[in-house]
């Protein structure tokens, strides 16, 4: 992993792995539960928020497909509609990952897990640790790919176009306010072929949230013995 970029003077792995561990150790020495509870509440709100965003993109898929059908019947062309539906599909899936996890929607083979109280706690913790590491790896490379797409100015292979102001508006989020004037001055009013980094943003956000949720619920399991219950079927 030679390409870990240093962030604020420290390698990224230190921020992702060492800093949370040190923080957790520090918290452990104090009273973790009372300190963590507000954090948990905020995190739960974030996961739910991402879930709502995912639900919004599900409606976008529906809207796009209906629009595509209507366009076909009325003889109008709707360029790139399939590509847009694909982007919305990715956004739905990635944004909902953490929300689905905390609601116990992701499936697992629970035969050994439910064997006894010991496995329910420790096998669960071990499985969550493995899952959390995997998800962190996933998130790390999702972000890297997203950055590289932006760097190489990778464009869509299909015929879908987006307005340039949309790109500028999203770019604003990643720049300092004093750069905004310059940014808008350089932005045109054309429609351009979709740069791949834009639809890839939900992938970066969603995978990071999944990794955060897994570490978060691992801590909850160890500190508070709180488990993710499998979604019950009514």
């Amino acid at each position, binding site marked *: 992993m030679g390409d870990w970029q240093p962030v604020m003077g420290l390698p990224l792995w230190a921020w992702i792995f060492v800093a949370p561990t040190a923080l957790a150790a520090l918290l452990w020495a104090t009273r973790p539960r009372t300190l963590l509870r507000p954090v948990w509440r905020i995190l739960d709100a974030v996961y739910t928020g991402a879930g709502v965003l995912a639900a919004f993109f599900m409606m976008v898929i*529906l809207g796009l497909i209906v629009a595509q059908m209507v366009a076909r019947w009325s003889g109008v062309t709707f360029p790139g509609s399939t590509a847009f539906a*694909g982007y919305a*599909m990715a956004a739905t*899936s990635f944004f909902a990952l953490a929300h689905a996890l905390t609601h116990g*929607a992701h499936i697992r083979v629970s035969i050994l897990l439910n064997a006894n109280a010991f496995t329910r706690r420790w096998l669960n913790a071990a499985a969550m640790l493995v*899952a959390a590491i995997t998800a962190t790896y996933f998130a790390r490379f999702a972000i*890297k790919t997203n950055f590289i797409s932006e760097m190489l100015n990778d464009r869509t292979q299909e015929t879908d176009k987006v307005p340039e102001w949309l790109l500028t508006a999203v770019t604003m989020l990643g720049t300092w306010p004093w750069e905004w004037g310059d940014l808008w001055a350089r932005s045109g009013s054309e429609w351009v072929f979709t740069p791949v980094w834009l639809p890839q943003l939900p992938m970066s956000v969603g995978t990071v949230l999944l990794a955060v949720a897994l570490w978060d619920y691992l801590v909850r399991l160890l500190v508070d013995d709180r488990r993710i219950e499998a979604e019950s079927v009514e």
Partner: protein
Amino acid sequence: MTELYATIIFLFVLFVLLGSSVWIGLALMGVAWVGMELFTTRPAGDAMITTIWTGASSWTLTALPLFIWMGEILYRTRLSQDMFRGLAPWMRPLPGGLLHTNIAGCTLFAAVSGSSAATLTTVGKMSIPELRARGYPEYMIIGTLAGAATLGLMIPPSLTLIVYGVSINESITKLFMAGIIPGLVLAGLFMAYIVAWHLLRPSERPAREASIPFAEMLSESRFLIPVLLLVLAVIGSIYAGLATATEAAAVGVIGALTLAAAQGSLTWATFSASLMGATRTSAMIALILMGAAFLSLSMGFTGLPRALAAWIDEMGLSPITLIAALTVFYIILGMFLDGISSVVLTMAIVEPMVRQAGIDMIWFGIFVVVVVEMAQVTPPIGFNLFVLQGMTRHEIGYISKVSLPMVGLMLLMVVILVAVPDLATWLPENLRQAPG
């Protein structure tokens, strides 16, 4: 020799991760990473994201969340009462009586929903209490329901077939069409089982109910009209070539919303619950597909699929022997994994093998669905067993025992499929091509 050791390590890690209850999607990703590190010098992480991104943003996949959403909406309507009321008068005169509502109800609901669990709960929440009240034996009620609910996987729209189609790059429309006739044949087998019970165990028959006049039968059937219209809109539009699978799914969602609104059961609460529920289920399947996409890539580097395909070729194994071996393999796998996971997990290995043997991939999709249907009702892990346990408070052991005859019928279905492959392949071959 090192190749062999590496393969053993790879498979060992797969079993350890899955067995130790790591979420399936992430477990597949972890195994795939191990495979990449063992067998190739390609940077694993970058290859992983490229594969996953291509898969996750694919247009074909969009049918999946929409069909899930459609099922979620219908699940929250009064559809189950309506279906029971509409179907019961027609089933009453048949030998075996109202038990047939289990089969007919599941078949009908399967035609608007792609999941077995949703089919089971929707039909079961009405038919179990009604059949119990009329004195049908418990083992027949539970057994036939557990078996018939698996039709949700076979009769289009089917989530398993979408996942299968996406993982091997076959037309979902064709797969959907292929599922119709085998699904109906399987439903026929289940009904034959009920008739056989009726004739062989006369002592267990409940008291015969008074027959109702034909006019009333017709008027009760009006409750079936909305769901029949929906089936017609979804399957009909695919069949007539008016819409692709995804477009049919969009039509289905709008139809389901209209139906719910007409019934007055479309509130903000049910709408948002259906939307969020569908979002979660689709994210669950998406995560498994992401893991599977990376695993397929990694599996390619291990050389395992090619070696197995070559080995099958050398052995001169006939297609029938291969299918028999795969049936056993999938039944064992299905004891521990759910249908979608076993499909995505095995396709990378099985696909080259099956193509090598010259088996039609559309036919094979239907075969796979029948064998993973069995997985839904075989212990220790069977999704329908869990759902039924929650609904009836019976032990898993009891439920799996009473649904064993259904597993037998599904095995018979495999034999029928092998004997008459046209059941699956005739309809897709004679299908009008959808635009787009």
